[in-house]
C-alpha cells in the first residue's frame, strides 16, 4: 500500500493547478507526445480526475503518467509552484496499488 495520506496529498497538490498552461513549453516530453497528456498540465489534470473518481483509468491516461521524466522543469515555470513530479509519482503509486479503479493496458507512443 502507498503511504497513508498519499492520496490526499496528491489530490491537494493537483487541485492547486489553475490550468493556465504556463508550464508546458518547458516540458521535454510534450513536443514529442501525441497529445496534451504528455505534458505537465495534462498529467496533473488526468491525476486529478482519476483521484476525484471522475473517470476510470484509460490506456492514454496510464501512458501519460508513465512517460513523465519527473524532471521538474514544469514546476519551475508554474506560477503557482505546483509540484508536478509529486502528483505524477503519487498517481503512479496509487494506480499501481489499484485504488484508482483497476488497471488497463497502455501503449506509450510518440506523436504521428
Amino acid at each position, binding site marked *: *500500500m*502507498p*503511504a497513508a495520506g*498519499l492520496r490526499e496529498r496528491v489530490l491537494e497538490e493537483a487541485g492547486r493547478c489553475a490550468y493556465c498552461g504556463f508550464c508546458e513549453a*518547458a516540458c*521535454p*516530453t510534450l513536443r*514529442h*507526445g501525441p497529445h496534451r497528456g504528455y505534458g505537465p498540465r495534462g498529467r496533473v489534470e488526468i491525476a486529478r480526475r482519476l483521484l476525484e473518481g471522475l473517470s476510470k483509468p484509460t490506456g492514454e491516461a*496510464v501512458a501519460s503518467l*508513465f*512517460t513523465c*521524466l*519527473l*524532471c*521538474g*522543469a514544469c*514546476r*519551475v515555470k508554474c506560477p503557482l509552484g505546483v509540484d508536478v513530479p509529486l502528483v505524477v*509519482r*503519487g*498517481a*503512479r*503509486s*496509487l*494506480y*499501481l*496499488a489499484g485504488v484508482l479503479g483497476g*488497471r*488497463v*493496458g*497502455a*501503449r*506509450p*507512443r*510518440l506523436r504521428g
Partner: protein
Amino acid sequence: MSALDQVLSLMAEYVERTGFPLPVPKGFQYRWAEPLGLPRRGRVYLYTGALYQLAPYVEALVEQLERVEERPGAGIVLRLARAVSRVVDLSKIAVRPDPARVEQVERVLRSVAGLLRAAGVEYAYLYEDDLYSGILLYDMGLDEAFERHARRVYARLRERGAEKVITVDPHTTRALRQVYPEYVPGFDLEVVSYLEVLDEALGAGRLRPSASLGLRAVIHDPCVYARFLGIVEQPRRLLRAAGVELAEPPRSRRMTYCCGGPAEAVLPALARRIAETRMGELAGVGDTVVTLCPICLVNLGRAARGRARVVDAAELLARAFGAG
C-alpha cells in the same frame, strides 16, 4: 494485467530477489574498487548506490530488446514483456554491456575515490554491501517494493556502522537524502554528495589543483541536482578551479533540460528524441560536454555521434587534482 504492470512487477520482483532491477553478474558493483584496496570498515562510507555501474547494463538491455522486437513504436515495456514471456525467466536474458562503457563508468568511480583521498577525506567502502538504492522503484510508484528494499539497504548500512555516506550521483543522493527518511523509520544518516564534500574542501584550502586543464567545456546540469537538491554552483566552482573554462547552454542551472534518460524504461524512442534535442543545444555551445550523472552520461554520450565528447566531471577533476 497489462504489459506495463507486468514489467513493473518484474522489476520489483527482481530487486526483491537480487537487489538489482535487471540481470547483472555477481560483484559487478564493486569490481571498480578492487585495485584500490579501500578500507572495509569505518563510520563514513562511499555509497555509490550502483547507479554508475548499472548504466551500461541498462543501455545494453534497451538496445538488445530494441533489436529483438522489430515492431516500431511499441514501447520497451511491451517488448520487454514479450521477451520475458517468451523466455519466462528474466535472468535468462544475458545482458552484454559495451566493455568500453563499463570501463568508462568504473573510471569515473575510481576518479571519485581518488578525489576524496586527495581532499584528505577518510572513508571506507561497502563492496558487496554497496546496494542499489531502489530509486527506480520509487519513481515508478512501486512504493511497497521500494519501502522493503530501502529498509534492507538501510539496515545493511547500519550493520556496517555507517553514520555518514558520500554519494556519487544525483538520483542516489536524492533517494537517501529526501526519500528514505519518509520510508525508513528512524532513518539517521548524514548524506552528502562527493561534489559537496570536494567543494567544501576546495573552499577550506584542503583540496588544491596540481594542474590546470586549460580546456573549454559546456556543462549539463542533471535535473535532480539542479532542481531537487540545489547542487548547481559546487560543480562549477570545482571545474573552474580545475582550469576548465565553462560555457553555459541556453538552458542551464535551474532551467536545465532533461537528457531524456528517465523515459528509457517506458519509451526508448522518446528518450532518444529528448537526448537529441539536448545534445543539439549542448553541441551548439562547445565540443566537450561535462555531465554529473550516469544516466546523462550514457544518454547524451549515445546522442553525441561525434558532435561532441561527453565526459563525467569526476574524470576531469581527477586529472587536475592529481587524483587520477
